[in-house]
């Protein structure tokens, strides 16, 4: 053993160690092709070093030739490794040059494998012993193989490829890499090429060894890859710090959400894995002790609402226009809670695109308050209706009395007719017909009264406004007569239907008409004219009720204030409630003073098409 052998073997061992490290890296991260290529290069260099040592020590031409034959394999794999490394890791160089180098070297390899002692010589004539670094080294002298040109062309292509890669790196601003890897590769390939050409073509008697040059390249690559490893380690350290920060943030967020009585959650799609703060979990009767699936959450939801929530969870809603869903949750104790969830998919983050995240709040109290408000409104409307009807009671009694009077008189007339020796049956038949009609009329009044007095949930039906106006006018006929009010109707034909609660709209009309009659109470009898007109506007139907009465106060809006009244017995709720009813239908109710005397009240309701 001497210095040269020792160095060469040391290099081989170092290369094998590096190869082992990078194979490890490649095994963990299969996409790290650069590491695999580097490992292949390192192994090739180790093999080259080992074979070169053997060549140096060869005693016979046959022994030398045998090792020279083997030499072709690591050279081929080294070139392949360099091209792959440059392409995969540096993403540089003209690909066609690289593959030309690999292709030419492969051709040379095939030719070399089938000839002895390889591609370099046709024949080794003699071994010369020269002294290098104090050691006797065998150098072959032989007849050059003309096919060697192919191998040298491969080297030339590789040289050009490396040069183009270096240029690419330089241009891309990666100057350090251009210098370390590109530069070392270029020098190595250039030096190796020159040495090989001179040696094998017999220009000089100096051994062709690639190991030291290869070593430079390996070290340069190892340096780059090592930097990558260092960066990875740094990133990993950063990540764990950030993770800790993130967890802290998450805890703070959960705390803040908790303080706002809100629960946070996210659902991973499509797996459906659920992450949620304890409060969010408890809203669905779930506990923190294990992982949950979104289906468990859905199971707690009221069956009637489940489909809606499922659509919300599956829907591709983006966070930036996050949507809200309100639903009921059935608790184990039978309690029903109202829950509102707002959420959506995160936008713009490739890793979280398939997760839905959001906030959930228990809105049971709000819902209860809303229900209570709605209930009170219905109650108030009902009370006001009852009050209105009680004001109308005299007229209504008349409306009921009239058919009763008709029935009574007809029946008694019939009795008398029947007492005659030859009763006029035709007339009696007529009488009975009139009795039936009168009875129906009474029935209608009672039916209408019952509907108005009934305390029902408001409905929305398609409603012909003219029909409602006529119905109310008929209903109030006796009252209008008693007050000496004459009504003129101008109803537009072909009005589109509105979507409304018939009873509520009747109530509004009764109130407004009643109000108009009150306003005209001071007029002389015979001078109490009321006009009811309907007309179509774009997307709306308007009812105008004009009187010739006392007009409006200085601020017309005051008449819609609760408890505003000019009557001694009035509650002052009629118009206020009427306005609330109309607005609840998406319409408007307002008053306009006339230039002369009187005022016009306008009721404006959206048509059914618009309301939908």
């Amino acid at each position, binding site marked *: 053993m001497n210095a040269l052998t020792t160095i060469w073997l040391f290099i081989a061992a170092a290369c094998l160690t590096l190869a082992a490290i990078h194979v490890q890296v490649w095994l963990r991260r299969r996409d790290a092709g650069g590491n695999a290529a580097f490992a292949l290069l390192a192994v090739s260099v180790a093999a080259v070093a080992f074979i070169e040592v053997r060549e140096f020590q060869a005693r016979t031409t046959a022994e030398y030739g045998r090792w020279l034959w083997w030499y072709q394999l690591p050279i081929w794999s080294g070139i392949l490794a360099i091209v792959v490394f440059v392409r995969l890791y540096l993403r540089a160089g003209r690909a066609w040059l690289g593959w030309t180098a690999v292709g030419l070297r492969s051709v040379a390899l095939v030719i070399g494998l089938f000839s002895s002692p390889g591609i370099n010589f046709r024949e080794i004539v003699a071994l010369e012993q020269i002294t290098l670094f104090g050691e006797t080294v065998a150098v072959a002298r032989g007849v050059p193989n003309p096919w060697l040109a192919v191998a040298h062309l491969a080297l030339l292509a590789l040289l050009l490829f490396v040069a183009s890669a270096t240029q690419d790196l330089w241009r891309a601003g990666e100057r350090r890499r251009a210098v370390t890897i590109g530069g070392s590769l270029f020098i190595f390939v250039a030096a190796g090429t020159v040495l090989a050409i001179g040696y094998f073509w017999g220009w000089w008697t100096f051994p062709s060894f690639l190991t030291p040059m290869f070593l430079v390249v390996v070290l340069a690559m190892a340096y780059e890859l090592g930097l990558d490893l260092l960066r990875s380690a740094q990133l990993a350290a950063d990540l764990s710090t950030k993770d800790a920060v993130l967890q802290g943030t998450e805890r703070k967020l959960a705390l803040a959400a908790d303080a706002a009585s809100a629960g946070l959650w996210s659902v991973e799609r499509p797996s459906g894995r659920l992450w949620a703060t304890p409060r969010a979990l408890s809203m669905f009767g779930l506990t923190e002790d294990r992982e949950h699936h979104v289906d468990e959450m859905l199971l707690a939801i009221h069956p009637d609402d489940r489909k809606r929530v499922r659509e919300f969870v599956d829907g591709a809603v983006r966070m930036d226009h996050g949507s809200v869903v309100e639903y009921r949750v059935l608790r184990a104790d039978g309690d029903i809670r109202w829950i509102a969830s707002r959420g959506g998919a995160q936008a713009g983050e490739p890793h979280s695109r398939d997760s839905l995240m959001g906030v959930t709040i228990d809105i049971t109290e709000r819902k209860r308050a809303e229900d209570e408000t709605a209930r009170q409104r219905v109650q108030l409307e009902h009370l006001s209706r009852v009050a209105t009807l009680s004001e109308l009671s005299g007229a209504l*009694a008349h409306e009921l*009395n009239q058919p009763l009077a*008709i*029935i*009574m008189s007809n029946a008694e007339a019939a009795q008398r*007719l029947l007492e005659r020796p030859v009763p006029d049956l035709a007339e009696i038949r007529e009488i009975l017909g009139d009795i039936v009609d009168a009875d129906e009329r009474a029935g209608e009044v009672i039916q209408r009264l019952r509907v108005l007095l009934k305390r029902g949930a408001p409905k929305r039906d398609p409603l012909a406004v003219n029909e409602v106006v006529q119905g109310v006018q008929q209903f109030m006929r006796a009252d209008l007569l008693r007050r000496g009010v004459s009504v003129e109707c101008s109803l537009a034909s072909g009005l589109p239907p509105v979507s409304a609660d018939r009873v509520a709209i009747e109530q509004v009309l009764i109130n407004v008409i009643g109000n108009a009659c009150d306003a005209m109470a001071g007029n002389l009898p015979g001078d109490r004219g009321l006009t009811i007109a309907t007309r179509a506007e774009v997307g709306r139907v308007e009812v105008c009720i004009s009187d010739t009465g006392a007009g409006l106060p200085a601020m017309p809006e005051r008449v819609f204030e609760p408890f505003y009244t000019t009557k001694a017995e009035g509650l002052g709720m009629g118009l206020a409630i009427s306005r609330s009813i109309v607005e609840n239908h998406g319409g408007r109710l307002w008053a306009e003073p006339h230039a002369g005397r009187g005022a016009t009240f306008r009721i404006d309701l959206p048509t059914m098409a618009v309301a939908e």
Partner: protein
Amino acid sequence: MTRRGKVFLVDDEPELRRALERLLRAEGLDVVGYGSAAEFLAALSDDDVGCAVLDVAMPGLDGLQLQQRLASSRARLAIVFLTGHGDIPMSVQAVKAGAVDFLTKPVRSADLLRAVHAALEQAGAQQSMAQATAGLRSRYEQLTPREREVFGHVIAGRLNKVIAARLGTSEQTVKVHRGRVMEKLGVGSVADLVRAAQQLGVEPAP
């Protein structure tokens, strides 16, 4: 029994009017129905006699206003009111203004017929009273001025002797005039004579 008058029925409600017409006709009454006060007033003539059955609440002229118009006409009509809802002040006003009855709907036929008959009777009595007065008046007009003078003193309760002194004539002459007056007016006693004077509106002589 005086000559039976017509029943004039005014109600804006056609069905009710028809029913009431039937009822009254079944009773054998002569009924005419009108849908409004104006229609009725247009058809009314001065020599109409009978009963007007009026609805109180009607568009246009109402029942009470119609009653006032009828009072100023020369037709002899007794009024029965029908109303939907009993309104005491209104009925007081109506009865004060001479209505025979004030009935609330629905009205029993017995009540209505009783009221109608009473009204017809009242109208008939007024009619016969008027007719009697008219006969008496034509007889009164046959009296000479002297006889009218004596008539005035007789109903003032003066004795023939006093009358003769006042008129500056003999007691016998007064007696003759007095006999003529009683003969011409068709009365048999001083009491009848006084009643006739009241009916004619003749004032006792001062």
